[in-house]
């Protein structure tokens, strides 16, 4: 047997005084970490396959389990960390590209945490959102460029298609395939109840979910999976996915083993075949090409639906966004480098792209400088973690935000970052029937609704504190923001002053 050089990442600590050998941990672990030995009358664990998803810990009725980082460490080295060494061992064994899931976990600066919000004192009274009206409704799409009047002097509005959001939060693209049908159903039902939108991702729309069409954004990605007339007609908007924050410049690959009967039908590809999304759209090599696709999709849907173009936040994001604003698209979605994914090459996820906070600020500024900010709405995603992040994003210029990781957490995800294995113990990122049923949409959709309601309350509280009673007045209102611990360059890019200024 070859030597396994890998050091297990975690150790399973079981308190024998608490363990009643009920074997729940064994039954719930798809990685087969736990098993019961009848001869020893004891639970045994093999931590080599543990991913620290916390399913066993959460379900253990006597709280007898703990998963903690393996105390066995290689010799300390400030340069060659254990993780780097493990990755070398892994690649020396496999010869393959390292794969990871979910967002970039490395300790890059989080600019949200270096921005502080304002509040009113004395001269401009704060507003109590529980007693006074407070508006968080948001419209996404092109704004009217000018006001014209008919012969009776009534204003004539342009007929631009738009999305109407009761809360400035939408659920970001996650395909059926990367997440389970139950997870999709939970998102769809939550979006319907919240008066917002969820996004099909690039995997097409399951026939059971056409009924949620009014709250669905249908994505068209480079693989064009499941795209046909009914699909485009089904949703409230169409999103062209040019890139994804977790893996800018990279396509997608859903392995054939996940393409079961239902996914095969939804994606319109043969069962068991790999679903490969190319890195580029093979018909888009310029803004003019993008414009052709935007207009084709609009034509295909009778000019009734807004078109979103989603890009990853990369170095030239402002110039790219300027092009997109001129392409005929109604909404631009920008995905920061901390955005999640079901699977991405580790090196790409951890090293490519830029923070969404900086990308948003520079895009908003560029579009305003060019006088085309009203041509397009801006939606940002890529690690919006809480309501304060939403408020800061809106103040930096976003019209709304996309959340996905937070939505997965609401459904039970513990960010073990092993989606790519297809063995999600929480029933989210898996297609194994026995695991999928672990996510009951009746429970999950309520948790999503609760989360967004809670954030909405908090957004209103924060706006009220600033003396602002509608999201419109907060949008792009960077005077409400101050930086802390940022360099002058960072403050300049964010377009905000330092605390104390």
């Amino acid at each position, binding site marked *: 047997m070859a030597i396994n050089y890998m050091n297990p990442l975690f150790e399973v600590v079981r308190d024998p*005084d*608490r363990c*009643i*050998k*009920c*074997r*729940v941990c064994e*039954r*719930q672990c798809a990685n087969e970490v736990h098993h019961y030995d009848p001869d020893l*009358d004891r639970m045994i664990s093999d931590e080599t396959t543990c991913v620290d998803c916390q399913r066993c810990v959460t*379900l253990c*009725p*006597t709280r007898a389990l703990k998963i903690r980082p393996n105390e066995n460490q290689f010799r300390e080295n400030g340069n060659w960390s254990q993780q780097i060494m493990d990755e070398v061992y892994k690649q020396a064994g496999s010869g393959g590209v390292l794969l990871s899931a979910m967002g970039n976990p490395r300790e890059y600066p989080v600019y949200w945490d270096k921005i502080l919000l304002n509040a009113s004192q004395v001269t401009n009274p704060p507003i109590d959102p529980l007693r006074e009206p407070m508006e968080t409704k948001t419209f996404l799409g092109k704004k009217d460029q000018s006001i014209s009047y008919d012969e009776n002097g009534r204003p004539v509005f342009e007929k631009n298609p738009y999305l109407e959001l009761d809360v400035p939060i939408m659920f970001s693209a996650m395909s059926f395939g990367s997440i389970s049908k139950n997870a999709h159903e939970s998102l769809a039902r939550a979006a319907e109840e919240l008066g917002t939108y969820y996004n099909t991702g690039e995997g097409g729309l399951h026939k059971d979910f056409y009924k949620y069409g009014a709250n669905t954004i249908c994505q068209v990605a480079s693989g064009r999976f499941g795209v046909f007339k009914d699909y485009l007609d089904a949703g409230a908007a169409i999103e062209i996915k040019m890139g994804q924050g977790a893996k800018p410049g990279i396509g997608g690959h859903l392995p054939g083993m996940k393409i079961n009967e239902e996914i095969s039908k939804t994606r319109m590809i043969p069962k068991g075949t790999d679903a490969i999304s190319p890195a580029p759209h093979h018909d888009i090599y310029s803004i003019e090409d993008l414009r052709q696709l935007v207009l084709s999709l609009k034509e295909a849907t009778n000019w009734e639906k807004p078109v979103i173009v989603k890009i990853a936040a990369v170095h030239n994001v402002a110039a790219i966004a300027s092009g997109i604003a001129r392409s005929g698209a109604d909404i631009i979605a920008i995905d920061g480098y901390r955005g999640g994914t079901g699977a991405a090459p580790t090196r790409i996820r951890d090293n490519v792209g830029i923070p969404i906070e900086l990308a948003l600020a520079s895009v908003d500024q560029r579009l305003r400088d060019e006088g085309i900010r009203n041509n397009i709405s801006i939606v940002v995603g890529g690690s919006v973690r809480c309501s304060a992040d939403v408020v800061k994003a809106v103040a930096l210029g976003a019209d709304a935000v996309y959340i996905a990781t937070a939505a997965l957490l609401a459904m039970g995800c513990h960010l073990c970052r092993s989606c790519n294995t297809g063995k999600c113990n929480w029933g989210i990122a898996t297609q194994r*029937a*026995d695991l999928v*049923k*672990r996510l*009951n949409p*009746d*429970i999950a959709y309520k948790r999503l609704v609760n989360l967004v309601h809670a954030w909405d309350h908090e957004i209103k509280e924060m706006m009220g504190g600033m003396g602002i009673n509608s999201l419109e007045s907060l949008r792009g209102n960077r005077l409400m923001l101050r930086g802390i611990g940022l360099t002058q360059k960072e403050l300049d890019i964010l377009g905000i002053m330092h605390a104390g200024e």
Partner: protein
Amino acid sequence: MKKVYVNEDWCLGCHLCEYTCAAANSGAPDMIKAFAGGKKPVSRIQIEESSTVNFAVQCRHCEAHPCVKGCIAGALSVQDGVIVCDEEKCVGCYTCVLSCPFGAIVIDEGGHKIRKCDLCTRNSQGEPACVKACPNNAIVFEER
């Protein structure tokens, strides 16, 4: 009347209901003590499982109640719609075990009495313990 119902679509076969039921009806203050020293108190709810489908089975508190009709010791009775067993009277003849069409009556760990679901009406649980313990809402306590 509110009863316990099971939706096999959401049953994971984790058996948490069994352990919670056993502990709740053991008289011990918590699950650790209920199972301490290798004790194995019986559960009044049992998981039936196969590779594709699982579900929990316990007393349906059915209107036909052949168990009550067949009880030779007068231990089983219907009280406010709930079929309960007076364990003082039970002689362990198992007539009820044989006559229950659902196989919902179990034999006590001691072997000389039966145990059955009483919807947690005679312990301190309030709502049935299995319902509270189910992690996926597969077991519900409701009016139908």
